[in-house]
């Protein structure tokens, strides 16, 4: 709880500072735009956080977005599948990939970093090959406008992706913090051996975490494809996995596993978007974008370490 509070204070402080220097920060257009991005990034960051809680990592997410985007565009524009079927198919593919990662990790005992690094390379290549390295789009989106609205529309002026994030976040909060399954996720991440000795099927739990992360990545993949509306297979989704990892770590997940919270992850994802916005609004050269983000994350982690050391003098 203390950890979430710390990063929440940081988020609010940052917002106040930016708002004072440039009041445009609070303009409805800017807020809406930012909320839409927070929604997009937040959803898959939750999946990343769950994987990290089990002591794993998923580096393949960005490439999965490219693959899903390409598939989505082909299903709708070239094969003319019904929208609902296309969504189900795309999310299904994403869940399947997550499951494969999970099985490779738990059955063959390959390190998560390596499995998903191979995924990062493989899916990117696959996406480019399937698309002939051509940028894909959705044309006039005739027949599936409602799908597009999920990414670009709003509900009572609140951008749809943000609404979805709140719904998914609430469900995942219950799953992670209130359910038996969630308790097992944390237990396996803390100490897989003791969990096994307590009768938990740790391999199934870990595999399911990757599948769950795949499902959330699938949802984001659909939204992201319609948000950008054009999918260039060589760059779509590039390095987004790092945003997910950063959000989870900022939100209190430990890469050692066993620690983290949904609220923390969502605040972490929000913080990253506010930082991007800050770079734009304060007239900082956009080339410094990544440098600002890196510096802030580092400062946050250092501050956390110092606080921890003071709290528990050893």
């Amino acid at each position, binding site marked *: 709880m203390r950890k979430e509070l710390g990063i929440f204070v940081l988020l609010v402080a940052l917002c106040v500072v930016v708002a004072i220097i440039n009041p445009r920060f609070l303009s409805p257009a800017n807020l809406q735009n930012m909320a839409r991005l927070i929604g997009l990034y937040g959803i898959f960051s939750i999946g990343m956080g769950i994987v990290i809680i089990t002591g794993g990592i998923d580096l393949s997410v960005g490439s999965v977005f490219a693959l899903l985007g390409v598939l989505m565009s082909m299903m709708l524009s070239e094969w003319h599948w019904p929208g609902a079927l296309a969504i189900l198919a795309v999310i299904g593919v994403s869940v399947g990939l997550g499951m494969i990662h999970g099985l490779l990790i738990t059955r063959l005992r390959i390190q998560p970093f390596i499995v998903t690094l191979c995924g990062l390379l493989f899916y990117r290549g696959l996406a480019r090959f399937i698309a002939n390295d051509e940028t894909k789009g959705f044309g006039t989106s005739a027949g599936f406008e409602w799908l597009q609205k999920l990414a670009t529309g709003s509900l009572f002026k609140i951008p749809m992706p943000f609404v979805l994030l709140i719904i998914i976040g609430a469900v995942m909060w219950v799953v992670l913090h209130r*359910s*038996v*399954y969630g308790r097992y996720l944390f*237990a396996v991440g803390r100490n897989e051996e*003791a969990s096994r000795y*307590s*009768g*938990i099927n740790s391999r199934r739990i870990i595999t399911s975490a990757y599948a769950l992360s795949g499902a959330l990545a699938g949802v984001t993949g659909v939204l992201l494809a319609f948000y950008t509306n054009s999918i260039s297979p060589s760059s779509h989704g590039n390095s987004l996995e790092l945003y997910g990892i950063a959000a989870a770590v900022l939100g209190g997940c430990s890469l050692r596993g066993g620690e983290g919270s949904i609220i923390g992850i969502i605040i972490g994802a929000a913080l990253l978007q506010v930082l991007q916005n800050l770079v734009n609004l304060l007239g900082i050269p956009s080339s410094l974008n990544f440098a600002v983000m890196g510096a802030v994350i580092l400062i946050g982690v250092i501050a956390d370490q110092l606080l921890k050391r003071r709290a528990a003098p050893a």
Partner: protein
Amino acid sequence: MLSPILEMKGISKRFPGVVALDKVDLEIYPGEIVALIGENGAGKSTLMKILGGVYQPDDGSIIINGQAVSIHSVADALDLGIAFIHQELNVFDNLDVAANIFLGREPRKGGFLSLIDRRKMYAEAQTHVDRLGLDVSSHTLLSKLSMGHQQMVEIAKALSQQARILIMDEPTSSLTLTETERLMDVVKDLRSHGVSIIYISHRLGEVQELADRVIALRDGRNAGRLEREAITHDHMVRMMVGRDLEDFYVHPEGVVRQPYFEVRDLRTRRYPHRAISFKVSKGEIMGFAGLVGAGRSELAQAIFGVDPAVGGGILLEDKPVKVHAPRDAIGNGIYLIPEDRRNAGLILEDPIRKNITLPSLMRYASAGLINFESERKGASNIFKKLNVKAPSVEERVGNLSGGNQQKVVLAKWLSLSPHVLIFDEPTRGIDVGAKAEIYELMRGLAESGVAIMMISSDMEEILGVSQRVAVMHEGRLTGVLERSGCNEEAIMRLAVGRE
């Protein structure tokens, strides 16, 4: 006669709560093999760690070649010509033989560049290896060598450091029979070259064949010594045990023995050719004695499904129970309190409550969601019943003492109404007061009809708590002793493989 190369006089060492060594003496002459024997926990390892510079003695003196010395580090010990071959080998299996022998002392060349003189290193390493009659190239990776050969490389390393005193801790515990014979030849050969060897072993046959002198330790004290002719199996066993049992234990009484839990031809992965069979009755505590490496923990882990059996099986009330993973055993009311409490038994960072309810969480949940109120209540009830000393169930388990941690492990299973409980070293590292409480709990469980297996290396505990004692030696069940015919000597005899 020559003067001793090494004398240890009046060595004492205390650890928090235990006196590990109490005025222990040991001396060894050049070209002599001294065997150091004693039960697990008798203080052999501590004494040798003091000689090897790992621990500092609280009292006593160490004299080498007539000069009093103090050994503050492993490097000090090496400078004095003392080398330690540990039971778990300290080799780097990703490096080759020469690199292992010369690690940290590589011959140099090339002036300020300080390059490794590879030619010299491999040539010298080869002479050390050849000297031991080992048919191995100094370019071979250690991972390609058998345990026996890896050990030879460690000995070669010690010799390359001009060791005059070689400490070998259970050197044959993981060797095959041929490798063991080979090692014994090498040890004898070293003796004839004037090297002094302190040989720690549970295998009395080896000791009888090798040792010029035997020094026995018991409970951290000298328990006698034997010279060449007097070194016999029986003499050694009597020195290692032979202590009065205090009336610390009360046995559960009036149990009608009725086989309830049966292990039939079970074979573990560690000893795939040894089949084990026995029966435990409801309400019975069956002790499992044996030396380290006898395969008792492997047996427990096979029954519980952590490392499933490779053959045979278990039966509960004559019904076969298939166990492929711990959850299968748990589903049948068979629970293990593991030896490695801190890693396998508990999640140390988590509070007591979460640890207690981990295996029984479903009981406190509906539709997959945890009812925190009933979870807290359930955990608190058991917490109070077992008298765990902690402010509340929200205390981190890592902050508790060993005894209270063990109670939490036990608490995990009690709410699940056990049929069979397997305790693996239930009181290791636990102080006397908590020990008594744990025995009390075990007795209560037995009286309520649980069948209990208790693996222990603590002879007092085995004799004091169990109704029958099963003894194991190198993966075999060498005998089951009834209470009446059960004493330390009889157990020791079976534990060293004598039927």
